[in-house]
């Protein structure tokens, strides 16, 4: 048992410091206002303070810290994307994730499990090879593996999937990991807080004031704040914020659902994803199976659950792992995913001076938390897009310069 636990026993009093200072009032102005107290917003605040010395920052959160998609995702971290821009971006994120616990002095349970994207058709196999080739080109551990390799890594998996759509091979990504999602937000929050950033929970933004086409301040339920720089990092609420500054985007909100089982002793070490069956699953350090599936088909700004989601998920899950048929699902939930036409984020500067956008996170926002915080902080500090995110600027659409991540989806059919 590590010595660090001894302090709890030796001390009479419980003297753990607060993670987050409670601020009873908002100041009249801040250098930077970040809308959204999720992983991205807190990470941006953290890097603004740590790397750029910008500490006069307010993070405004309508609910509670990490209460949005940060606390609703299935915590998978990987960098085996299809496009060069995607791969470079997420590779940097993985590197940051690997050192986050040390940075924070907080255990985020970053656990490298190995990530299998199962291919059930020859077109899926082609896409897997495509991704593997692009990944390898950028030095990322990613390869196309056969059934035998999958069997060895995950003997419990029924490669024949109950007789239909058998697994033909997989894209294997050794660095694929899971992490304790809440802890990532808390770590960034605590780090930002200790560097002087103010985190205001239960503070809803009601408007953004523009003067002469540039940002002048933010209206909140708790009054007006003057600022020259506003960063929107609100994922599922993005369209509501962009509407405040009259900015049109391609973003459409779709619910993304997930569910979790009762805890059981460890039997699944890897992360298993099946595009064709629309299932992904990993086993948490608590022993629960954390499972997700495809987006709901229609736009919706709600985190309601549907029963047919769990029905479909269970059905496909038992194709892969028939023996869990008696295991019970305890809880289901949903997040609001901000989808873009090309399955890539929208980041960086916008036509409105002082308004920065970090959005379009769809189903891949958690794994980008550190890198988007870091690159957005750089972008806000320099008022210029960080080179890693240039391809993701909103302007790409009117230039018909879409990012090809969707290529994977389309070829993958």
């Amino acid at each position, binding site marked *: 048992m590590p010595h660090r636990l001894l302090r709890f026993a030796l001390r009479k009093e419980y003297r753990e410091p607060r993670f987050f200072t409670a601020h009873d009032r908002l100041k009249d102005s801040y250098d930077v206002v970040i809308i959204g107290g999720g992983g991205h917003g807190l990470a941006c605040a953290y890097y603004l303070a740590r790397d750029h010395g910008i500490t006069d920052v307010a993070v405004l959160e309508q609910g509670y810290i990490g209460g949005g998609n940060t606390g609703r995702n299935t915590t998978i971290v990987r960098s085996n994307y299809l496009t060069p821009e995607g791969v470079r971006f997420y590779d940097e994120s993985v590197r940051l994730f690997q050192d986050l616990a040390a940075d924070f002095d907080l255990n985020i349970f970053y656990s490298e499990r190995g990530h299998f994207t199962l291919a059930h058709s020859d077109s899926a196999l082609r896409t897997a090879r495509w991704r593997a080739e692009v990944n390898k080109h950028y030095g990322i551990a990613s390869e196309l593996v056969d059934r035998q390799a999958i069997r060895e890594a995950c003997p419990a998996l029924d490669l024949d999937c109950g007789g239909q759509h058998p697994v033909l091979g997989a894209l294997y990504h050794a660095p694929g990991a899971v992490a304790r999602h809440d802890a990532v937000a808390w770590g960034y929050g605590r780090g930002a807080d200790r560097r002087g950033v103010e985190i205001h929970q239960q503070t809803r933004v009601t408007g953004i004031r523009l003067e002469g086409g540039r940002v002048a301040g933010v209206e909140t339920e708790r009054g007006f704040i003057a600022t020259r720089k506003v960063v929107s990092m609100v994922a599922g609420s993005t*369209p509501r914020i962009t*509407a405040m500054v009259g900015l*049109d985007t*391609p973003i459409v909100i779709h619910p993304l659902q997930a569910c979790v089982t009762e805890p059981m002793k460890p039997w699944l070490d890897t992360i298993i994803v099946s595009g064709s069956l629309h299932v992904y699953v990993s086993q948490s350090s608590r022993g629960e199976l954390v499972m997700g599936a495809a987006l709901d088909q*229609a736009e919706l700004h709600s985190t309601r659950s549907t029963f047919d989601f769990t029905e479909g998920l269970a059905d496909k899950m038992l194709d892969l792992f028939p023996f869990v048929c008696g295991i019970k699902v305890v809880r289901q939930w949903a997040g609001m995913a*901000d989808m873009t036409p090309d399955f890539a984020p929208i980041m960086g500067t916008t036509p409105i001076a002082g308004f920065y956008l970090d959005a379009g996170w769809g189903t891949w926002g958690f794994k980008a938390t550190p890198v988007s915080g870091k690159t957005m902080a750089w972008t806000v500090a320099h008022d210029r897009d960080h080179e890693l995110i240039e391809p993701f600027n909103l302007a790409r659409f009117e230039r*018909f310069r879409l990012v090809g991540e969707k290529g994977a989806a389309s070829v993958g059919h």
Partner: protein
Amino acid sequence: MKLIDCPHIGPRPASEFVYGGPYRRMPDPDAVDDKTWTEYVFNRAGSPGVKLEWWYHTPSGSWFIAERDTLRDLFLRTLTVSEVHHGHG
């Protein structure tokens, strides 16, 4: 599961329907400049609200238009496409 009241066949569970995206009028392609056109192609009215949408009932193979509150998750009413064309939308 939600019920969707198809104007052709009446209420059916949502699983029998395919969502067809927002009902939008295309600007005259020959009249608009490139910017306006690309905005039409890519941008969407993403804020929550009451929207007209395309919905398709798969078993009977028919399209119709639904007026839906995307914040409260409510189908307010459904119309045939011609009703919408003729301004009943």
